[in-house]
């Protein structure tokens, strides 16, 4: 979707599909009464195929969605539920509508994955509509990049009314004069920065942070002998890669120690 300053009146916007009153009523009835055994057709509207792989791993033996009668069918004519994956590219809008119109009423539409829900990481790309809902009336949103098989099953269960949804919109206002304690006050700031840099250099983002946090927590927990705490952390670590990073951090700590 174009979200820049380009005049809105000059942009073409897809007409949203409005459900017929009769169809809407039938759909509500379907949603309330159908508890299992739905046929699913998936429509890939410009996804990366990650979502497709997760859908197919949902119907394999480990997660086995077919024990609820959920079956992936090869034609929208057989489908009760349409899964739309991908960020809805401009060229896939027509095929998406064709699949929607080919499915018999009443039908349930599921937006699958981050791209299907809102456009995901491609939301401001010039050639996408930003998810399924600018084009089609969506009943259930399954976020994830891609959603794991259990969250897919949860999505089906939510759509069929077996499980209740957990997330709810929330807005809070933080009170004024709230103070946050300084993180790791016992470690000098520059030493902390050196630790964090070294850990990220050794094991990259995300894991580097987790490792350095664990290391610094251990150091600050033992108020008497931090070096001994570091030694016991290294000794107790079974993962050799992680132990190497801990040993490296300890060497760095030793280089910062000054005799008084």
């Amino acid at each position: 979707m174009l979200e820049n300053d380009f005049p809105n009146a000059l942009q073409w916007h897809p007409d949203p599909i409005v459900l017929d009153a009769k169809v809407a009523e039938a759909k509500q009835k379907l949603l309330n009464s159908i508890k299992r055994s739905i046929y699913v057709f998936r429509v890939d509207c410009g996804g990366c195929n990650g979502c497709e792989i997760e859908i197919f791993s949902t119907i394999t033996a480990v997660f086995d969605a077919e024990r609820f009668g959920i079956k992936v069918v090869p034609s929208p004519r057989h489908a009760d539920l349409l899964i739309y994956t991908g960020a809805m590219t401009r060229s896939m809008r027509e095929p998406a509508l064709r699949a929607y119109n080919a499915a018999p009423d009443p039908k349930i539409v599921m937006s699958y994955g981050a791209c299907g829900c809102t456009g995901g990481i491609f939301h401001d790309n010039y050639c996408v509509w930003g998810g399924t809902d600018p084009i089609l009336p969506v009943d259930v949103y399954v976020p994830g990049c891609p959603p794991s098989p259990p969250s897919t099953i949860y999505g089906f269960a939510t759509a069929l009314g077996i499980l209740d949804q957990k997330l709810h919109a929330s807005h809070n206002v933080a009170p004024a004069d709230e103070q946050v304690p300084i993180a790791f006050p016992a470690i000098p700031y520059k030493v902390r920065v050196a630790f964090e840099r070294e850990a990220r250099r050794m094991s990259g983002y995300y894991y580097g942070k987790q490792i350095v946090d664990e290391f610094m927590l251990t150091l600050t927990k033992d108020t008497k002998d931090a070096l001994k705490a570091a030694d016991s952390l290294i000794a107790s670590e079974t993962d050799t890669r992680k132990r190497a990073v801990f040993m490296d951090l300890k060497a760095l700590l030793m280089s910062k120690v000054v005799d008084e």
Partner: protein
Amino acid sequence: MLKLFKEIRKTGSATLGYPFSPIEMPSGFRGKPEHNEKLCIACSACAIACPANAITMELDPDQNFITWDISYGRCIFCGRCQEVCPLFAIELTTDFELAVMNKDDLRESCSYPVARCSKCGKPYASAKEVDYSRRVLESVGGPAAADIKKVDLCLDCRRFDDAEAFAHQAPDRKEA
């Protein structure tokens, strides 16, 4: 035939019980990012790092609050927000049950009071962040803490201040 049934019984079932029994995700699983509103100083580091712009920071129209907002529908669960957080205000949990029937339920937000520049009165950061950075500077001490008063200035005023200080210094340097 009997042998086959015996074999099946011995092998057991590989299928997991979910959703009828709870499932435990592995510890490295990247699920729903959980925001701790009390620990958050609204520094926008996560909003800048977020590759999908799922986390956004926006100043309210009346300029009294800055609002942190996440859309789980847009989140790609990369963990960059956890990576850049200077405190432990946002962490990825193993919670995967995120499906909703209504799109608005995918949003979560929190508003924080803003701090205003002591010179020009423009809002420039969240009050919590200014307070936090002041305390960090105090704990660091030394030359870093010498300019601690400038924490109360917005970026423009600080630049102006620096330029003024430099202009005062310049003639002395010329003589030396």
